[in-house]
């Protein structure tokens, strides 16, 4: 039962990542692409957690933490650049 649930959730997250890539390609503005990238790295964290559940191991925790931290820093940096036109004033 747990394997079926994990496979179902992996299918859902795969479709979600495909939708994020669709928005990343057709996004009319850079802000839309930034939202799509933000969602894409959160979905990558979810996918890593699902792989950790499936293999019953803890080694996927640290990549998830790294992706969360680096993705947040990248999102904040790009948003600041889109707001002000420069990162370092």
């Amino acid at each position: 039962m747990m394997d079926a649930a994990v496979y179902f959730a992996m299918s859902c997250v795969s479709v979600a990542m495909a939708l994020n890539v669709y928005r990343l390609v057709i996004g009319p503005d850079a802000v839309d692409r930034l939202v799509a990238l933000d969602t894409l790295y959160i979905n990558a964290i979810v996918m890593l957690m699902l792989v950790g559940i499936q293999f019953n191991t803890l080694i996927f925790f640290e990549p998830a933490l790294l992706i969360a931290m680096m993705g947040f820093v990248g999102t904040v940096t790009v948003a600041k650049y889109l707001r002000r036109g420069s990162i370092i004033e």
Partner: protein
Amino acid sequence: MSAEIAVSVLVVIGGVFTLIGSFGLARLPDVYMRLHGPTKATTLGAGATIVASMVALTVGGEGWHAQELLVALFLFLTAPVSAHLISRAALVRKLDSVTHGDSTGNGHRRPDDEPGADQPEKV
């Protein structure tokens, strides 16, 4: 067995909410509306999946641990900050909204002389 049921339910909830958030990102007509899906539904799905991972590894692994709560806490703290900064960037770039003018939300810039248009920030 009960832990397995709990993990299954949490994993299904996480997958469904993640899919709903990304579907909203792909289908909604406006950048301000598109921010709603990822910042609420996707964050809830990620939190449910992380709690499911914690329960599964506590039952099937080597004892109790709560390291995944670090990821969940970080995500819940940083998702509103990211959303706020992205929406401020969209406002400063004068992206049009469906409820604000007659556009279709296709990244049209509002003219400066339109009443109700936000003035850009003093840099």
